[in-house]
Each structure stands twice: as structure tokens, then as C-alpha cells.
């Protein structure tokens, strides 16, 4: 397996190690956790000489070709530098965390998250594919969320984590858009191709958008103004996390991104303006804010913001040398800031506080730690002989050699010096306010030196600050050179890493910064007083309030539309229907087509008038429910007649039987519903609804008219031709139902069966309010089973069943069929219920309707299955003519069995509904009183 691929994979594997090893001692867990990253570091070290020599390693494995996403890793100078930081500082943090975390903390979980983050970060810097880069980028957001919220029971940890995730996540989305556009422009998501196509990209019309999108991604991650505020709040995380993520690695991802895409995106005024101005603003703002923090970590966080601004400023200066300086400062900042965070963690850990107003004079209690912290602080302040000094000198030098602001470019070095002043001042504050400045105030614990090994990481980092500060080129020269080479994607300009460049302007600026810093710190009281005039704004509070407002606004917005009113929802559906269907109608020139119309006669006028009055009557009397039911019946009857008139006897039969059963159902319901509807629609609502319904009615009428008056060529001739010969029946409609489109019918009876089951569910455990009298308040009649009705109904049952059998048997050749027969049977049985009551029937008729439904559907489906035995598809029909003596010729068809299934389902379903409903009312009649 490729070594390069092994590096991230080893780290990924490392995420489970702590989970498996957490049951051993914490030390063992730490060491086991460190093993795989150490191995990865070793592998990188192995490759390092070749990389420094100018080689670039690549590996790519296909992942999702459809989106051009492959697992592609590369190791070049820039990646190498960052890998060192990630793995090296990561290992130190693992060691540090072993002592930092208390026994109650789940260290396995912590390490697992930490390694996950390490993996994500490593993925970012080693990515050789734009989308993959974004994938790891987002993974850093997720894993940092987990780390910041490690103490999730604390409100500030939750809030800080959410804020960090929201800001960096949002940035990630911008980045994704930018990267996708970049890939679009270049035609490839391969990083190298993109880096090589700088000219193409810069010339493209989307370039400005791409730059903005990518930079927003970078700025959010690197806490650049105006997205800087999340970083101080992320300090709710355990300090090892701060040391690792918020100084050395994650916040550098944005910087890394800018450096990575430097060859592709930089080099235009747009880039320089945005990047340098943002960097400058951040540099000053961070420095200024750091000065006023009372929280030790707050100070460090703001100073980090400031330093990130410095690096960004460098990247925006437009000279290759500035880029080198930026890379150099990345290394230096990582070392001194990580050590400072660790020191702060030690102080917090051993004194129980991070408040600089309480922490005073710790020099006495922990001189060794104090020394380390002071050295690191001085590196941060840019004191000579420490690494910070070197890169700051380079920075000052670069500010003098830029022209980003045209004739105002002189302001940049001035601002830079001012930033230097601030940075000296807050570094000084860190040293003086914590380690000197009198005695500690009300500390929860008496401070003392930390355990031996907790200090080791700090020692190593501080040593690095010193060594780099004194022998820069010896330690980091090659690394810097190679990183700069790959960041520039080309030759690196001449530069020298030396402590002494003679007396020059940068040195003067450094001196001013040092002296100015001292003076600012000395007069800090005035500054604090000045700052105190401004209302203290906690970005966390503002952000939370913003989010809460967003949620509240969303909720009121949603509640406004989704107000739980069905009428409104129906209104929306109908309105949309009107809108979409009215537009095309406007284009229709002539409503009437060329097809000749049937002449009008008295009968049709009668039907039309009856239908119209019936429909209108239903609307007018809808609040008098019984009347509405009668007018509805009229409409149903006329529709039946219309079907008969227009040559559809089957339809007439079906419509009629369904209508009667529906009316019976509605009557059953009517009994339990209020008998009258109060008038509650406002006139405006009525007018609106009238408008809507009239519009839809008009559209429907127009469309059907336009359609009917135009000729149509259909597939139906096939059915007429094949009905007898292929389906064995002369009633083409029935043959379509049971044969040509038998599958529809199977679905249809299933619907009926399901409806019955659903209704059974609705009925069970229903608490009904029984009216004791009718709408006039009159008590119900005593006559439960009227004499004549009972007697006649009894003798009608056999007749009705016979008719039902008749309709069933002739269905295939004449109007009729299983469905209608089923409904007739049902109606006949319902009539018995009406005449005799449920109890009477229950004793005499022992049918399990549920079984009827199941077997009905089963029989119909099994009929279809029968054709499998003959190698034909489902529902292939069979029929033949037989001849018996005496009886003569007769036909047998599989369609009949299918129809039997239909019949059984219909009877079962209808009866399951009605009988259960009836039963319910019987058993509970006296129990409830009318509610209103």
C-alpha cells in the first residue's frame, strides 16, 4: 500500500484506539493513542527529505467518479510543513491532555475526537482534490464542534460550540460553492490542475465571485474580521483543545487555504485589497481586544486573532516574499501560542482560575512554568532572539514594500507598528498581571507547579521558540523554503533568515513597538477607563439572541402560514390549481372544436335543470344537513340517469348503488354529528370561496367542453376487437375491468378492503356523543323496528340476493359484474339491519367480514397467479366454452373467479364498515349525552 495513503489512514484508525484502550490506565491510553499518529509522523519524516528536495508525492483512489471526487492525497512542501505542525503539536497535546483532564472526564472520548480532528486537519492539508479538500474542511468543523462541546453540560460550552460550528459551517458552504465554481471554470477538481490554471481563472468572468466565496471560507475558519468573534467563545473547550485547534492548527486552515490557492487566485487587485484589508483590520482589532481581556484564555484567543490577521495581511500584500514571511510566521505562531495556551492551562489547572484580576504574583508559586510562559510571551511580543521577532521583522519589512493602498500605502507600516505596539502591550500584561503585580486574590486553590510531564510539551515548544529564534535557517530553513515553493507553485525569491540585518526601518519599527507597548501597558488604566465607556458587548450573547430571534421569527412566519386551518390549505390547493390551469386556457382561441355536437332535447334540459338545482340546493342548504343529503341524492340520481343516457349502463348501475350506500353512511354519520351547522363564514370568506369555486368550475367546464368538441383517436378499438375473442365477454367495459385492466381492479378492491380495515380502526375505542333527540329536540320514536318494514324486508332479502346473483353472472357479457352484485348484496343486508337491528342479525347471520375481505382479495390475486403455472404473466385470463347434455353450451372463464374475489371484498368491506358502526351505537346508546 502506498505510504502516502497510509498516513491519513493510520490517523483515522487512531480514532478507535483510545475508545478501545480507555479501560486501561490514562497513561496507557495516552501512549496507545499517540502511537499511530507518531507512526504517521515517522512516515512523513521518512518522505520529508525527498519533499524538501523538491519532489511531490501524489496518490489517488477513485471514490465517487460521478462528482469527480477521488481520495487524492499529496505531500508537497506546504503539506509537509502543516503535517509537522499537526502531528507534532498533536502529539504534545496528547501528552499534555493526559494531565490536564480530570478523572471524571472521559479521556477515551476526548482522545478519539482529538485524533478525528487530527485526521480531518491532515486531510485538509494533504488533499489533492478540491471536493475532498472541502470534505476534510467540514470534518474539521464537526470534530472541533465535538471538542469544544466536550463539557456539553456547561451552557457556555454548548453555545460556544454551536457558534463555532455555525460560523465555520457557513464558511464551509461558501467554500464549497467557490470550489465547485473553480472546478467548473477549470474543468477539473484536481488541485494541481487548478493551481496550474491561475491565468485562466483570473481571466474568467466568475473570478470575483470565486475569490469572494473562497475567502469567506478562509476568513471564517481563521477568525478574520468580521467573523472573528467565535474564537474567544470557543475557549469553553478544554485547554488542550485551545492549544491545538485554536492556535496551532484549525484556525490556520483558512490561512492554509489562502496559501494553497495563492497561485490560482492571488495576483489581482481584488485579492490583495480584500485580503490585506481584512488582515489589517483583524490584526489591529484582535490586538486591541486582547488588551482588555480578563480571562487568560480570552487574551490568548484575541491575540491569536490578531496574529492570524497579521498572516492574512502578509498573504494579501502581493509579494512572494510576503508569502514566505507568512509561512514563517505560521510556524512561529504555532509554537509560541500553543505553549502559551498550555501554560495558561497549567495555571488554570493548578490555581483554579483564569481570571487575571485574581491571578497575581504566581512567580512565587510556579517559577518554572512562569519562566516558560514568559519566554513564549516574549516570542509573541517579538522580542529579539525569539522566533516571533524574526517573522515580525520580515512582516515589518514587507509592509514597507507594498503599494496596496496606492498613495495611502504608507499607512500600512504605521498600522503594522501600531499592531506591534498592541501585541507587546498584551504580552506584557500576560507576564506582569499574572506572575507579578502583588498577591493572588481569592484563588480556589493554592497554586503550585504542575506534574512533571505536563510541563514537557511546553518545554519542547518554548525550546523551539528559542532555537528557531537563534538559529533560524538551521532549524526551519529548508522547511520554509520548500513550503514556500509549493505555496507559490514556482520559484521562491531570495531571502535571508538572520537575526541581524543591520539597523534598518523594520528594526526601528520593532523598537517603536517595544517601547510603545511598554508605555501603553504602563498607562493601561487610562485605556481601560476609556474602554469602559463603551457598553460591554458579549458576542456570545448577541449571537445567541440573533439565533433565538431567527427561531422566533421563523416560528411566527410558519405559524402565520401553517395555522392549522384546513380551509386555508384547501384554498391554497385550489388557488394553485386555478393559476396553473387558467394560464394555458388564455392561449386557447376557440373553445369549441370541429367535432359535431349532439342536438339538445327536452330530456337533457330536464336533467340539466334538475342537476343544477340539486347541486345549488346542496350548497344553499348545506347547513341543514338532512336537506342537503336529499338534494345530494337527487344529484346522484341524475348522474345515474346521465350515465344511462350516454350509453354507459354499467356506470349507471354502479353509481346508483354506490350513491345509496354513501347516503346511508352519511346518515349514520349525521346521527353523531351536530345536525345543524352554525353560520360562521364571514361574508368576505363566502365571496372569496364563491370566487374560487366558480373559477375552478369555469375552468373545468371550459376544458371538458373544449375536449368533447374535438375528435379523439384512442386505443379503445383494440378492446372492442379483442373483447370477445381474447377476453371471452361481450360487455367490453367488464372485460376491461376483469381482464385488460384487471390489475386496476385488483388495486381498487384492495383500496376498498383497506378502507374497511381503516374504518374499523377508527371505530374501535371511539367515544361517541349520542344525541337523545333530533335537531328539534324531539325524542326519538319508540318504534325501533316498524312492523311493515320488518315483514317486507324479510321477504325481499332472497329476491335481492337472486338479483345480485343474476347481476354477478351476467356481468361478463351484459351490464353488471362482481362489484355491483356485491353492493346489491350489501344493500340487501343493510336493509335487514335497518329493519331488524344489529342484535337480531348478529344471532342469525354469522359472517366474518374480515375473512371475507382477506379471502376476496386473496381469491382475485390468486386467479391472477394461476397463469404463472402456464408460463404467462400475472392476470392472464383463461376462458373456454363447454357443452353438457341437457344444459347445452356454456362458458367458463377465470374472470368469473376474479369477479368472485371482487364480490367478496365488496360485501366484506361494506359490511365490516356498517355492521361495526351499527354495533357500536347499540352497545353504547344510553351511555353518552349530547354535548352541545
Amino acid at each position: 500500500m502506498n505510504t502516502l495513503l497510509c498516513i491519513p489512514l493510520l490517523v483515522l484508525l487512531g480514532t478507535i484506539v483510545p475508545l478501545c484502550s480507555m479501560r486501561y490506565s490514562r497513561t496507557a491510553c495516552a501512549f496507545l493513542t499517540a502511537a499511530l499518529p507518531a507512526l504517521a509522523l515517522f512516515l512523513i519524516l521518512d518522505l520529508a527529505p525527498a519533499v524538501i528536495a523538491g519532489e511531490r508525492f501524489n496518490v489517488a483512489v477513485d471514490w465517487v467518479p460521478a462528482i469527480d471526487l477521488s481520495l487524492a492525497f499529496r505531500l508537497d512542501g506546504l503539506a509537509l510543513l502543516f503535517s509537522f505542525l499537526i502531528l507534532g503539536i498533536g502529539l504534545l497535546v496528547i501528552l499534555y491532555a493526559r494531565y490536564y483532564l480530570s478523572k471524571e472526564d472521559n479521556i477515551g472520548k476526548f482522545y478519539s475526537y482529538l485524533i478525528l480532528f487530527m485526521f480531518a486537519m491532515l486531510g485538509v492539508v494533504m488533499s489533492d482534490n478540491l471536493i475532498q479538500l472541502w470534505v476534510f474542511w467540514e470534518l474539521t468543523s464537526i470534530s472541533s464542534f465535538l471538542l469544544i462541546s466536550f463539557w456539553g453540560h456547561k451552557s457556555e460550552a454548548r453555545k460556544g460550540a454551536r457558534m463555532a460550528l455555525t460560523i465555520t459551517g457557513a464558511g464551509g458552504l461558501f467554500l464549497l460553492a467557490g470550489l465547485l465554481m473553480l472546478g467548473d471554470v477549470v474543468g477539473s477538481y484536481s488541485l494541481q490542475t487548478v493551481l496550474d490554471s491561475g491565468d485562466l481563472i483570473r481571466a474568467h468572468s466568475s473570478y470575483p465571485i470565486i475569490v469572494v466565496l473562497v475567502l469567506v471560507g478562509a476568513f471564517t475558519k481563521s477568525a478574520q474580521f468580521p467573523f472573528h468573534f467565535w474564537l474567544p467563545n470557543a475557549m469553553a473547550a478544554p485547554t488542550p483543545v485551545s492549544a491545538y485547534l485554536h492556535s496551532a492548527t484549525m484556525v490556520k486552515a483558512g490561512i492554509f487555504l489562502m496559501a494553497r490557492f495563492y497561485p490560482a487566485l492571488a495576483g489581482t487587485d481584488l485579492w490583495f485589497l480584500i485580503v490585506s484589508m481584512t488582515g489589517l483590520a483583524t490584526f489591529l482589532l484582535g490586538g486591541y481586544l486582547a488588551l482588555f481581556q480578563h480571562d487568560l484564555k480570552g487574551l490568548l484567543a484575541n491575540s491569536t486573532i490578531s496574529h492570524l490577521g497579521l498572516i492574512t495581511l502578509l498573504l494579501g500584500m502581493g509579494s512572494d516574499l510576503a508569502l514566505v514571511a507568512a509561512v514563517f510566521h505560521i510556524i512561529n505562531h504555532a509554537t509560541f501560542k500553543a505553549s502559551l495556551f498550555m501554560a495558561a492551562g497549567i495555571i488554570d489547572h493548578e490555581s483554579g482560575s483564569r481570571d487575571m484580576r485574581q491571578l497575581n504574583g504566581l512567580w512565587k508559586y510556579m517559577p518554572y512554568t512562569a519562566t516558560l510562559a514568559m519566554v513564549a510571551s516574549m516570542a509573541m511580543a517579538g522580542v529579539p532572539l525569539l522566533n516571533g521577532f524574526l517573522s515580525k521583522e520580515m512582516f515589518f519589512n514587507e509592509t514597507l514594500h507594498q503599494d496596496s493602498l496606492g498613495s495611502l500605502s504608507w499607512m500600512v507600516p504605521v498600522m503594522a507598528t501600531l499592531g506591534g505596539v498592541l501585541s507587546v502591550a498584551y504580552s506584557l500584561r500576560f507576564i506582569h498581571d499574572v506572575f507579578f503585580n502583588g498577591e493572588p486574590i481569592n484563588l480556589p486553590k493554592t497554586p503550585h507547579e504542575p506534574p512533571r510531564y505536563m510541563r514537557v510539551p511546553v518545554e519542547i515548544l518554548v525550546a523551539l521558540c528559542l532555537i528557531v529564534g537563534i538559529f533560524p535557517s538551521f532549524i526551519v530553513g529548508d522547511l520554509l523554503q520548500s513550503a514556500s515553493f509549493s505555496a507559490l507553485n514556482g520559484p521562491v525569491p531570495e531571502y535571508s533568515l538572520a537575526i541581524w540585518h543591520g539597523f534598518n526601518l523594520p528594526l526601528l519599527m520593532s523598537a517603536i513597538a517595544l517601547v510603545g507597548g511598554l508605555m501603553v501597558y504602563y498607562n493601561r488604566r487610562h485605556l481601560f477607563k476609556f474602554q469602559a465607556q463603551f457598553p460591554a458587548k458579549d458576542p456570545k450573547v448577541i449571537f445567541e439572541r440573533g439565533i433565538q430571534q431567527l427561531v422566533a421569527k421563523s416560528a411566527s412566519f410558519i405559524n402565520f402560514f401553517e395555522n392549522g386551518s384546513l380551509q386555508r390549505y384547501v384554498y391554497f390547493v385550489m388557488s394553485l390549481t386555478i393559476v396553473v390551469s387558467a394560464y394555458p386556457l388564455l392561449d386557447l382561441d376557440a373553445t369549441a372544436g370541429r367535432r359535431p355536437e349532439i342536438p339538445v332535447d327536452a330530456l337533457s334540459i330536464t336533467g340539466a335543470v334538475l342537476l343544477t338545482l340539486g347541486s345549488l340546493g346542496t350548497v344553499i342548504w348545506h347547513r341543514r344537513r338532512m336537506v342537503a343529503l336529499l338534494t345530494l341524492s337527487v344529484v346522484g340520481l341524475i348522474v345515474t340517469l346521465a350515465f344511462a343516457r350516454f350509453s354507459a349502463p354499467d356506470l349507471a348501475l354502479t353509481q346508483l348503488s354506490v350513491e345509496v350506500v354513501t347516503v346511508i353512511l352519511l346518515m349514520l354519520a349525521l346521527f353523531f354529528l351536530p345536525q345543524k351547522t352554525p353560520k360562521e363564514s364571514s361574508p368576505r370568506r363566502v365571496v372569496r370561496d364563491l370566487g374560487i369555486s366558480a373559477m375552478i368550475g369555469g375552468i373545468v367546464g371550459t376544458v371538458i367542453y373544449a375536449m368533447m368538441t374535438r375528435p379523439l383517436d384512442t386505443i379503445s378499438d383494440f378492446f372492442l376487437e379483442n373483447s370477445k375473442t381474447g377476453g371471452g365477454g361481450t360487455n367490453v367495459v367488464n372485460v376491461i375491468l376483469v381482464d385488460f385492466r384487471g390489475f386496476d381492479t385488483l388495486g381498487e378492491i384492495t383500496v376498498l378492503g383497506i378502507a374497511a380495515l381503516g374504518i374499523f380502526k377508527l371505530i374501535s375505542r371511539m367515544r361517541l356523543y349520542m344525541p337523545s333527540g333530533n335537531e328539534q329536540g324531539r325524542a326519538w320514536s319508540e318504534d325501533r323496528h316498524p312492523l311493515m318494514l320488518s315483514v317486507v324486508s324479510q321477504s325481499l332479502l332472497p329476491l335481492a340476493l337472486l338479483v345480485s346473483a343474476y347481476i354477478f353472472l351476467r356481468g361478463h357479457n351484459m351490464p353488471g359484474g362482481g362489484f355491483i352484485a356485491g353492493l346489491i348484496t350489501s344493500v340487501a343486508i343493510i336493509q335487514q339491519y335497518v329493519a331488524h337491528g344489529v342484535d337480531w342479525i348478529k344471532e342469525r347471520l354469522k359472517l366474518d367480514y374480515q375473512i371475507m375481505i382477506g379471502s376476496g382479495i386473496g381469491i382475485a390475486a390468486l386467479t391472477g397467479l394461476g397463469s404463472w403455472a402456464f408460463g404467462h404473466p400475472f392476470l392472464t385470463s383463461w376462458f373456454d366454452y363447454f357443452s353438457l347434455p341437457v344444459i347445452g353450451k356454456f362458458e367458463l372463464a377465470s374472470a368469473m373467479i376474479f369477479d368472485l374475489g371482487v364480490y367478496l371484498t365488496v360485501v366484506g368491506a361494506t359490511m365490516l364498515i356498517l355492521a361495526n358502526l351499527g354495533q357500536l351505537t347499540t352497545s353504547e346508546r344510553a351511555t353518552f349525552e349530547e354535548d352541545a
Partner: protein
Amino acid sequence: MEGIYAFCVGLMTACGIFLTLRGRTFSVVVGLTLLSYAVNLFLFASGRLRLDAAAVLGESENYGDPLPQALVLTAIVIGFAMTAFAVILAMRARADLGNDHVDGRIPQTKESARQKSGGQR
């Protein structure tokens, strides 16, 4: 004839939709029933209107389009199942929610307020 037919279908649709937009379950169910009648007539007419043309072989010289008839049959049955469910659901809603308003709550109008006070009395 087609004009009259179209008018009737349009009118029934309009009436059905108007009732569907009312606030009580019963009106809504009646409206949906009316609407389904209109739909069935509409679907039926997609095969064009024919007199004396029942699609029974040997019973007449010409045959109307049998396919829409079969479709309407299916639609009627399905519509019946759906209406039945809706009717019982309306009852269930009354039982569970105490009123038959489609939104499951009593809108505050003068009349309902009066009813309420009447009920308390």
C-alpha cells in the same frame, strides 16, 4: 348537448369545491362527494359523449369508448372507499375533539359564543 354537459360538470365542480371549503366536516364530506360526481362525469366525457352506443358487443351498431367507462367504474369504487373513510373520520374527529369543525377547534363567532353560553345554561 356537450355545452349543457360541460356546464353541469363545471357547476357541480364549483358546488363541490365551495362545500369543501366550508368549516364543518359534514359539509366537506358532502362537497367531496359532489366533487367526485363531477370528476366521474368529467372522466367519462374524456371518451366523448355517445348516444345509443353501449359498449356491449352485439347490442348496437356503434360503440362508445369503453375505456373511460372502466376508468370511471374504478374511480367510483375508490371514491366510495375514500368517502366512507372520510365520513367515519368525521365522526371520530367529533368524538375525539368534541366538535365537528375541520380544524378541530371552535372558532369564536357570535353564534358559537351564544351557543356556548346556551350550553352552559
